[in-house]
């Protein structure tokens, strides 16, 4: 038994690409992490072949209090309330949400708009993550 465990641990190569696994897993199951008050800022996610749209409710928030960043297939959404605004009130409380997308994001494609307290983010897939159609030539 111990021998088997030993063998297993040896076959566990440190070169294993965790990112790859993460990516492949989230290809089918986009996952969500958040800190701050749960669901105070709910997110809906929409996908198509070329990218994604994320919609976040942030009533009362100003664009300059919201921070967006992408890192591979992760979208970080952060809201930081300035000190002179009442924290933990009806609409305000710092939050940080991480959305694992089923693809890696082309950094220069990220666009966001905030209107009537709704933040809409569009993200494009990197070219290499887009599905490719292979032409079949019939001889």
């Amino acid at each position, binding site marked *: 038994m111990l021998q088997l465990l030993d063998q297993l641990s040896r076959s566990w190569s440190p070169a294993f690409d965790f990112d790859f696994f993460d990516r492949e897993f989230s290809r089918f199951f*986009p996952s*969500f992490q958040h800190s701050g008050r749960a*669901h105070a800022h*709910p*997110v*809906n*996610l*929409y*996908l*198509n072949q070329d990218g*994604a*749209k994320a*919609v976040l*409710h*942030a*009533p*009362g*928030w*100003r664009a300059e209090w919201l921070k967006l960043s992408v890192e591979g297939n992760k979208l970080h959404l952060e809201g930081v309330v300035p000190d002179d605004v009442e924290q933990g009130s*009806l*609409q305000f409380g710092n939050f940080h949400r991480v959305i694992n997308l089923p693809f890696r994001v082309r950094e220069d494609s990220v666009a966001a708009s*905030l209107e*009537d*307290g*709704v933040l*809409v983010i569009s993200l494009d897939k990197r070219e290499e993550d887009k599905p490719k159609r292979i032409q079949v030539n019939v001889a």
Partner: protein
Amino acid sequence: MTTATLEKSPVAKTDTQNSPVPESNRTASPIVVPRHRFQRNDEGLLFTALLPGVPAENLDIQVENNYLRLKATAKAPEFEGYRKVHGEFTQSDYQAAFKIPSGIDASNIKAHLERGVLSLTLPKLEEAKPIRIQVN
């Protein structure tokens, strides 16, 4: 300033029987009571409600028989060719109603909608404001 908690608020929850909106006026889309709170101060009451996605033209506030009713329709973003893969909210219409407490000047209620947050100021009637009596 005292803050009423959400649970103690006088706004009727989705009580369909006593809903001030007649059956015929109800729409098929889900209707929810928005997150809201009441705050009391020396000037009167302040009602705040979160209405994300609601532009001013989609908000209707009426005062009738001492009841304040508000109805709002959110503008749902539409993404053609996209499919929803994760949803934490459903796009819904908002509705709330509450009895205006006595001592409020119902004709001077002011509404302000900014960035999806509605603020209603309900001022006290002049005669309802506290008067300080000078002791000689």
